[in-house]
């Protein structure tokens, strides 16, 4: 088996994995019942699927150009910085709007988490 063929098999597997992960994230976004549950789904696309695609891109272009090509990792760094910021802002916005509307809030955290919260406060 040549290097090119091996690289192609790796790239194809990584791409298919990312497709399945993104589809799972979309189904979660559609099917989960509550907003705070739905928030979990897109992070699958932000982390695992993005890493799969960028690894595939690195392998493909490194074999193609016969030199290491790592610039795609910049996108992963950007996503790793931006996704948590967006998630925290959106969660706070949802909590705020739910309190304002008087809708039921998500159940409080368990005993362990609550004691940790008291220590932090």
């Amino acid at each position: 088996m040549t290097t090119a063929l091996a690289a192609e098999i790796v790239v194809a597997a990584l791409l298919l994995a990312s497709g399945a992960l993104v589809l799972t994230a979309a189904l979660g976004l559609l099917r989960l019942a509550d907003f705070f549950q739905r928030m979990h789904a897109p992070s699958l696309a932000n982390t695992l699927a993005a890493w799969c695609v960028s690894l595939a891109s690195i392998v493909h272009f490194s074999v193609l150009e016969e030199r290491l090509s790592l610039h795609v990792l910049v996108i992963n760094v950007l996503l790793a910085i931006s996704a948590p910021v967006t998630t925290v802002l959106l969660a706070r916005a949802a909590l705020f709007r739910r309190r304002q509307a008087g809708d039921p809030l998500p159940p409080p955290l368990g005993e362990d988490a609550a004691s940790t919260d008291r220590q932090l406060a």
Partner: protein
Amino acid sequence: MSNLLVLAVGATLVMYALAVAIGALRLVRGPHAHDRVLALDFLFVVVLLTMLVLAIRYQSSMYFEAALLMALFGFVGSAAMAKFLLRGEVIE
């Protein structure tokens, strides 16, 4: 470009298209404004990944810049909309 890779890229793009359709459904259905912002953020990420897959398909580095811009503008847009939902102002 071998047959195997063309098939894999095609299957991946079909799965991404399904994911975009499902995300757009959530974007239209809501029910709250924050659901729509979440769906839009997800759509931005999926299109970004599509750009990277197209870069592999057409062996071009031009798509990388497009993907970088999608990541930047997706973050700025989602953060601004979330901030607006939180405070009623984007820049205070």
